């Protein structure tokens, strides 16, 4: 096994890691805003990628516009789901399990819907910078992958600023921590919840359009992405975006390196085992703060 091969794998792992971190970030956004664990986060990515694909190939939109629309489609879907499905569930007083079952059901509905409308074939999108690659110490990394990392990083910083520095961001957090208190200070709590899903869906959709040139998009990808993103999110304590990055990178790199030693079919087994181990050993994230329930 050459150093180049290892480096190549590590680079792939880092790229994947940022995708997982983005998904994890979306999960964290939804959790911070509504205390709901969103099992359909990966489906936002799927829809984002699919919408971008359709806009690009059937409507001939330019790449960056298609990407943007894909991300926004994720947001729109999130907002719609909150309005039509999450609110009635809340009104009937659902338990934690109830929300999980709801989001799981929606995840499967979306996945099945994509299967119905687009079939089983995988689709692929062109990346930013086309097929070009950069060479790093003899290992190649696609230009698009570098863009992915940069954009992901920018999104994370933006979100951090959003939550700590803007009124809306603070209001969203306040609305989830103390509903009644927030309402008395004039915060429109239901709208904050809708915004939360809008934001979470957009981040998910963005993850989808960013990842689709590198791996193919097909109807089954959502659930695995969600679980891997969840692993990243837990390491960040479900609230710290930098923790999610570290979690995502860990998962991505270990996954890629492990594939060098065992058959690639075991990739998901390794990822899922890492998830379980993280949940048991580090449920509060690497920073050890008790900010979540369940576990």
């Amino acid at each position, binding site marked *: 096994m050459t150093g180049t091969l290892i480096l190549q794998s590590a680079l792939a792992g880092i790229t994947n890691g940022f995708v997982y971190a983005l998904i994890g970030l979306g999960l964290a956004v939804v959790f911070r805003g509504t205390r709901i*664990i969103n*099992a359909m986060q990966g489906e936002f990515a799927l829809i984002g990628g699919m919408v971008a694909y359709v806009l690009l190939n059937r409507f001939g939109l330019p790449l960056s516009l298609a990407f943007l629309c894909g991300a926004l489609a994720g947001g729109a879907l999130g907002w719609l789901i909150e309005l039509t*499905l999450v609110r*009635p*569930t809340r009104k*009937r007083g*659902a338990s*934690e*399990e*109830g929300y*999980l*079952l*709801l989001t*799981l*059901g*929606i995840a*499967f*509905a979306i996945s*099945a*819907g994509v*299967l*119905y409308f687009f079939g089983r074939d995988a689709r692929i999108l062109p990346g930013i910078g086309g097929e070009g690659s950069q060479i790093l110490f003899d290992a190649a990394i696609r230009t698009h992958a570098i863009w992915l990392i940069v954009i992901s990083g920018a999104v994370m910083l933006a979100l951090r600023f959003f939550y700590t520095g803007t009124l809306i961001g603070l209001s969203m957090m306040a609305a989830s921590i103390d509903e009644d208190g927030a309402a008395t200070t004039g915060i429109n709590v239901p709208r904050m919840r809708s915004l939360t899903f809008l934001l979470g869906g957009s981040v998910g959709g963005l993850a989808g359009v960013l990842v689709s040139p590198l791996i193919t998009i097909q109807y089954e990808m959502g*659930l*695995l992405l969600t*679980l891997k993103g*969840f692993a990243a999110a837990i390491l960040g304590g479900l609230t710290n975006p930098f923790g999610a990055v570290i979690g995502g990178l860990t998962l991505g790199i270990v996954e890629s390196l492990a594939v060098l030693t065992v*058959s690639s*079919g*075991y990739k*998901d*087994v390794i990822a*899922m*085992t890492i*998830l*379980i181990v993280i*949940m*048991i050993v580090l*449920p509060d994230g690497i920073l050890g703060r008790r900010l979540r*329930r*369940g*576990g």
Partner: protein
Amino acid sequence: MPVIARVHEANARLPLLKWAGALLVVALWAVLPALASRSVTDMLVFTALYSIAGLGVSFLLGQCGIVSLAQSVFYGVGAYSTAYCCVQLGWPSAAGLLVGIGISAVVAVAVGWPILRLSGYFLALATLALAIIGHVLFLEWDWLTGGTLGIGGIPPLSFMDYQLNSPQRFYYLVWPIAAALLWFHANLLRSRNGLAMRAMRDAPAAAAVLGVNIRILKVRMFVLSAVLGSLAGSLFAHYVSFVSVDSFGVDRAINFLLLAVLGGAKTIVGTVLGALFITIVPNALSRFGDIHAVLFAACLIAAVIFLPDGFGGAIARLTARMRAGDSRS
């Protein structure tokens, strides 16, 4: 709701009607294969099989408060154990069944012990991760499972020389087994461990104070659930005589969970209703093509929103209200 208690009361009040009703149901059940088509009987066989596996998920959800998406793994273990032992090793069917149960129990203890410390959505997602791991292993370990090609030629169950190789014959085996298991479960609910289990769901700290070892009880219940899944899987293998990895994936796990949620995890009759639903509805919807999966998921969503106690719960509420109406008149 203490359905057991309410059923006891109903018993006390209307014994004749209840017995007549039960006899009617049994009579209908007995003659159905003679009257109905082969495909309907086949559907009802699957209803029984899914009732057995679904009971495992259902009682974990309703009585222990655990969302388990791992049942597909144990279903697969049972099916593949039977397939491998009977086809590759030539062992008798009982051996395959017992091997399946044994492996499932061991796996349930091995994974249950660490992950059952978790609760809420962490636990649910951990079981989902297990379902994925199981599915991939079934695929990768093709020397054991035949991978995508599967294992065929599983002999049907036979007693003496009487082979259960048709839906009608299998129907008369599988339903009594399902009924027996449901009866065992009813026994459990009334007993000390059943009460401990339900107590643990409602107030774990208070249960611990009464002497219940929460962790050990959870693992025991998980093992029980796994055994039910494995048993159903072994019977399934003997019935369809060909198993492949497609039957043991995450959508199977979702099906079992849907059965529990839709049927009503807190009642026993709910499990059977849920099983009926997930066998009949896909059949009825299959004429619409691939969209049936979407409709199916839509049912899960609707059930979570509108019927959190499932059909069984709705029925229990209805009968309670009817009896309340009776006592007032």
